């Protein structure tokens, strides 16, 4: 009997601890939630506008998103959502989430910003597993290599020029990371091709 009472007491004590700590957690969540949401939105918007600078939009780019159909060739995965930048109800820029499969070690996920003039506005690397010190120079805060795509389009760069300089292309490779550089260059070209093919659906829907 004494034993049973002790067990019951322990169970009650544990439940009490959990309820009390849980209450504390809920209170914190309740008080910080709106702030976290605001900061997260601000952060996302800041990163997105950073890719698309110097363009500015009349809509909130974080809120306007559309789901685009899968396209394995262009590296668009299932359920990925594109961001739309509008000015006076007209889409002037689009941000496409792309997965480049031919990285040196695994997939490279990136966001490619393309203007309605079919030019690259900017690229942001979202995640990658490239070698630190060599392949990770694709990140914008490690080197400015990724900015070299700005203003490029199918029109001003030939099909053969979409390659590293070593192979007779237009883009210099990152030292020691030719495969990484090349996979991004080719992924970017494929996205531009995709936009060319689906221009009406992307920029003039309805």
């Amino acid at each position, binding site marked *: 009997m004494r034993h049973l009472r002790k067990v019951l*007491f322990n169970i009650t*004590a*544990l439940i009490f*601890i959990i309820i009390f*700590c*849980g209450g504390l*957690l809920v209170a914190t969540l309740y008080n910080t939630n709106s702030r976290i949401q605001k900061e*997260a939105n601000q*952060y996302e918007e800041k990163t997105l506008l950073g890719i698309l600078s110097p363009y500015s939009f009349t809509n909130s780019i974080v809120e306007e998103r559309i789901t685009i159909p899968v396209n394995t060739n262009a590296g668009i995965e299932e359920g990925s959502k594109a961001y739309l930048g509008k000015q006076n109800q007209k889409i002037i820029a689009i941000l496409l989430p792309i997965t480049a499969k031919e990285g040196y070690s695994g997939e490279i996920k990136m966001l490619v910003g393309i203007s309605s003039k079919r030019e690259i506005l900017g690229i942001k690397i979202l995640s990658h597993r490239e070698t*630190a010190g060599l392949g990770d120079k694709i990140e914008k805060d490690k080197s400015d290599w990724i900015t070299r795509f700005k203003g490029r389009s199918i029109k001003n760069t030939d099909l053969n020029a979409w390659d590293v300089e070593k192979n007779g292309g237009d883009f210099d490779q990152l030292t020691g990371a030719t495969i990484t550089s090349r996979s991004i260059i080719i992924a970017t070209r494929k996205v531009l091709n995709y936009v060319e093919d689906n221009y009406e659906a992307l920029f003039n829907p309805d």
Partner: protein
Amino acid sequence: MSDIKKEAWEYNQVELLLLGFSPILIATNSFSNALVLASATTVTLILSTGLAFFFKKIISPEIKLLSLLIIISFSTTITELLAQAYTFEHSIILESFFPLIATNFLILIKMEKVLKNNNTSLQMLHAAKIGLIGFLILLPLGFIRELVGTGELFSNMDLFWSPAAIESKFTAPQFFNPLIIITLPSGAFIFCGLLLAIYNLIRSKIHKS
């Protein structure tokens, strides 16, 4: 103050320096990261010790470990939420390292001491002191690793204040070639070893005199 010196330099050094903070050593590759992590650890430490003190009466020996772990995980989550609310970009950079604070056994030891000891307020003070010692260990590590590993100092510090208010970033002159290995996890252990060597050097000098 002499107490802090005693705890930091004269005993508990292996426990504190090498093991206690090892889960978060990896992420201290810049000064601002070290600052955020040290503050997060301190907040978790004080919060969980406080809660352990609060529940002292109902925690019997049979459920001690279980209840302490529950308390730690809740306080770690609360700390993570606070970090997200007040330094959002750091919480993105440090993403998976906040939950790792829960594995810091220093907190567990401190809570056990609170349960055992009758002089609880003294133990609470000790908990705060351990947090302070965490600052003393992590900040120099972050400082050196950032300087040697990236050739910069105080990057991302502007995320604490408004960017325009302070231009804090310092960049080393061009001829300085950063050692990338230092920013990788192995760099933490290299400098941790060096820190320990310096500590031993100072201690042996103190012992001689």
